[in-house]
């Protein structure tokens, strides 16, 4: 599972970086989205991968932390998703404004430059 997970993050990051470096604004925003997916998966993976483990530890019985999932990365990834999503939406608005003002979708506003 770890190998597939790592491969997925790697592929997402590589495609994201390639797209961010492209000259069209739409490609940049797609690249940023892919990068944010990769980063979110990465944060999630930092809390150790586990199937079927609950993130809440029962305090009544003496619980073994090894049987439970780490709740902190799940909280972090939630925040990161929300922030990343909001920023991407904002970027989309600016992208459209730039398209409207310059008349093309080049990142510098001028395909010849």
């Amino acid at each position, binding site marked *: 599972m770890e190998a597939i997970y790592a491969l997925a993050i790697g592929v997402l990051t590589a495609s994201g970086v390639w797209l961010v470096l492209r000259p069209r*604004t739409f490609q940049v925003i797609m690249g940023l989205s892919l990068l*944010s997916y990769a980063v979110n998966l*990465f*944060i999630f993976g*930092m809390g150790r991968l586990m199937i079927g483990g609950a993130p809440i530890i029962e305090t009544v019985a003496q619980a073994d932390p090894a049987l439970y999932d780490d709740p*902190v990365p799940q909280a972090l990834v939630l*925040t990161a998703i929300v922030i990343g999503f909001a920023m991407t939406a904002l970027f989309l608005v600016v992208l459209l404004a730039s398209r409207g003002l310059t008349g093309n979708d080049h990142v510098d506003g001028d395909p010849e430059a």
Partner: protein
Amino acid sequence: MLLFTEARRAARTIIALVATLANLLVALALAYIASDAVPSIWPDGIAVYPLGGWQAPFGIVLVLDRLSALMLVLNAVLALTSLIYALARWRKAGPHFQSLFQFLIMGVNGAFLTGDLFNLFVFVEVLLAASYGLLLHGLGEPRVKAGLHYIAINLAGSFVFLIGVSLIYGVTGTLNMADVAARASLLTEDERILFETGIAILGSAFLLKAGAWPLNFWLPPAYGTAAPPVAAIFSIMTKVGIYALLRLGSLLAGASGASVPAPFNDGWLFGIGIVTLVLGTAGILTASQPQRLVAYCVIASAGTLLAALGFGGTAMKGAALYYLTSSVLATGAFFMLCEMIDRTRQTGEDIPLEMMEPVGQEPVDADFTDDVVGIVIPAAMAFLGMGFLACALLVAGLPPLSGFIAKFLILSATLTDTAPGPVPVTVWVLWTSVLGSSLIAIIALCRMGILLFWSSDEIMIPRLHLVEAAPVAVLLLLSVALAIETGPAMDYLNLAGNSLSSPQIYIDAVLSGNRPSGPLPAPSIPMEGIRQ
């Protein structure tokens, strides 16, 4: 503030002014208590406030020490002056100026106060989100183009930040800065490699925010095209990155025992700082627009700061903090002044303001000094000329203003910290680049001043409002006061520098949950923006 409709400008303005003023008062009070004025309240000038009552390292803590108190005061001063400046016309150029402005202040305050890495990320995102909106304030094609680049690079930077934070969490199992530093020395060899990778990734994100080469090509267009009051408050934003580098670097240096990981250790910071300084100075020389010139001055000051901090030594820390204070005040005033100077020229009118009519304040140029023999200089032009001169002196570091004292302190600190004997190469490099950049800055600023004030035929006497001239005058007078009161200021800044050099006190204070015994003013600062 968001609840009011756009029409209720007066109500928004009053709330914004009151909130910003309260922010300044709270910041001043915190700085006063954090200095050794009342040692009974906060021992060592460190106050820890656990949010929600959760003790560190399990909950998020807000930590106030002398460095963060200093940054809070700077931010509050700059916020109040640029808000008053914006009242004249800029707040009308687009919607939600006031709300975004308060969010920006909240984000900057929070970033200076937090003691938690992920919380730092959240506050940085809050301030970035507000800054995206403010940068686009007033719209226009150059702003949208600069904004597009600015948002893209900062989004990428945020992802780098997140990767760094989560790597550090994966290795150490904690996000609290003090706890990270305390555990760094307990790591095994394999974990240490991962940890240093995480720190390096995190450090690059901070360097991006600080405007360090080679991650600063977004800065001149963004700062050069932003609305002037916005650009003025942005000049503290690059210092958020420097603050984070300083804070984490100091914690890691004290606790890990081993060498400090890559971008935080002295060699790296020094090298990056020197290159940033040299390239920023080259930019000053090439800039053809006043506001863009100031943007390059921001880069040059970031470079000087990084180089000075990278040079190391306790005396240097106090001197660098003095330079930081002086340069933030100077660039803030300079950005606002540039816009007023711009009004004397017919060209460069690319600012599509919806409403240009005065809001009813007394124009400064009402009292013409026309009984003087000789060429009549209207008061407005005289003010602009004097202001430009003062800003130029501050940025270039000539006496008698605080810019000179700041650079003098940095250069003298290089000599006090080194052992007797032959002068090391780093001292030579620092001296040459700091003095050389001052010389080039003088040349470029003289040229700009001559072009602006003396050699243009169609100079128009600008209409200045008192609310526009007063903030610039206040910022400049503050730097004069800083120059006069160098002794007391340096006492405080040296205390701040000393506490950075002994991070174990900070770590102990945070991890022992050292609650202040007095009333708890700490949370009132980040809450201010929320209350709007």
